[in-house]
């Protein structure tokens, strides 16, 4: 594939991440997060990171490791009750946390990827999480204006890729991964299996290769 080959080693891929970056990480609980990339990011010690993810795994597991290591400055996400260390770190003032309703979180990431700067949703209108946000009434119902969520880097997980970077996912491991692939300046995909170009059924491709910059193989 010559210079079109997107495959790198995990170390090469993680070396592209600068301290202070905004990083999206796919996954829901421990399903569908890029384990190898997250392990390597934790081992790299790169810090001051803003992690944009549904949750933060469990204490010391998955993304939880980044918190244990003190690599996180801020979190943007949806649900941290599975990792009580997040609440503790937040109450000690060690990290910032921005909670976003899950559907709004998904749509804001999608919006970033598809060139939509903001959108309206009824979720959170009038609640603590809607506080300070612009609202507008459409057809008698109040909606909250939500901004798109962008990132410098997305670390995502797919089950199968061709050498171009067309991606296929596995069951509920899909979750936020295809959205994050579109939303970051640099998308790094960890894949379980790679196949030659032309061997994926084009109808089965979920993420077209245009959204994928770098790939690493799950070891």
């Amino acid at each position, binding site marked *: 594939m010559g210079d079109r080959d997107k495959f790198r080693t995990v170390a090469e891929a993680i070396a592209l991440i600068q301290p202070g970056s905004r990083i999206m990480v796919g996954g829901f609980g*421990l*399903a569908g997060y890029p384990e190898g990339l997250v392990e390597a990011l934790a081992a790299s010690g790169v810090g001051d990171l803003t992690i944009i993810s549904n949750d933060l795994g469990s204490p010391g597991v998955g993304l939880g490791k980044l918190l244990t290591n003190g690599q996180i400055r801020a979190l943007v996400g*949806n649900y941290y009750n*599975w990792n009580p260390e997040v*609440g503790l770190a937040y109450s000690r003032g060690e990290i910032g946390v921005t909670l976003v309703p899950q559907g709004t979180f*998904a749509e804001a990431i999608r919006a970033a990827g598809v060139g939509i700067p903001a959108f309206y949703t009824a979720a959170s209108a009038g*609640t603590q999480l809607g506080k300070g946000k612009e609202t507008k009434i459409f057809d008698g119902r109040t909606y909250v204006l939500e901004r798109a969520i962008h990132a410098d880097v997305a670390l995502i997980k797919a089950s199968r890729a061709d050498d171009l970077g067309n991606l296929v996912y596995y069951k*509920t491991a*899909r979750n936020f991964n295809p959205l994050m692939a579109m939303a970051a300046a640099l998308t790094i995909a960890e894949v379980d299996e790679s196949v030659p170009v032309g061997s994926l059924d084009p109808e089965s491709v979920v993420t077209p290769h245009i959204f994928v910059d770098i790939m690493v193989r799950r070891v």
Partner: protein
Amino acid sequence: MVPLVSEEEAKVRIARRIAEEFAGADHELVINLGVGIPTLVANYIQKADVFIQAENGILGVGPLAVGERIDRQLINAGRQPVTETPGCSYFDSAASFGMIRGGHVDATVIGAFQVDQDGNIANWIIPNGKQLGVGGAMDLITGARQVIIGMQHTTRDGKPKLVKRCTLPVTGFAEADLVVTELGLFAFEDGKLILREIAPEVTVEALTALTEAAFIIAPGLKTMAA
């Protein structure tokens, strides 16, 4: 205090009664089940054309997976390993919440800390400094066509959960349609809370004493199946 109905019995009764709500539908239904009591509802659904959607990206959730069937990449929104049903499909989180926000999900069954007499629901956080998460609750409550709450009638220390005005942070306003507890079934109609069924263990007076919210007794009040 000793509860009128044990916690275990209460959970089963609530789940069974909510499942019954879906039994009469003459068309296929897509429902989303929250964690806790709502998850149990699936055990009592007999109809083949009730499809369970989980917001982490699956339509057609089957029973919980056990033993060799556990696949850690196939979970529900409560992170429990589940199985898939025939005709199941997977999709990303934006499509999943598109179904929810777009009004394609017929009902969401959720738990709650408090529901008030105006149909406001508080179910996402008890501000005790330990919790930090909202999940899909706000999207589900505002998006699903019908919002069904399954919760025990009182807190562990006997305080009413059906209140005049939510004191905990609200998840969504005037969104509750049906509240099922172990002691009764209440429906919101034209903004008013109506008691439609009452459990055999209580009288209307006893139930009123355990309920802070004002409610109207439906003509033809029925006894809830124990």
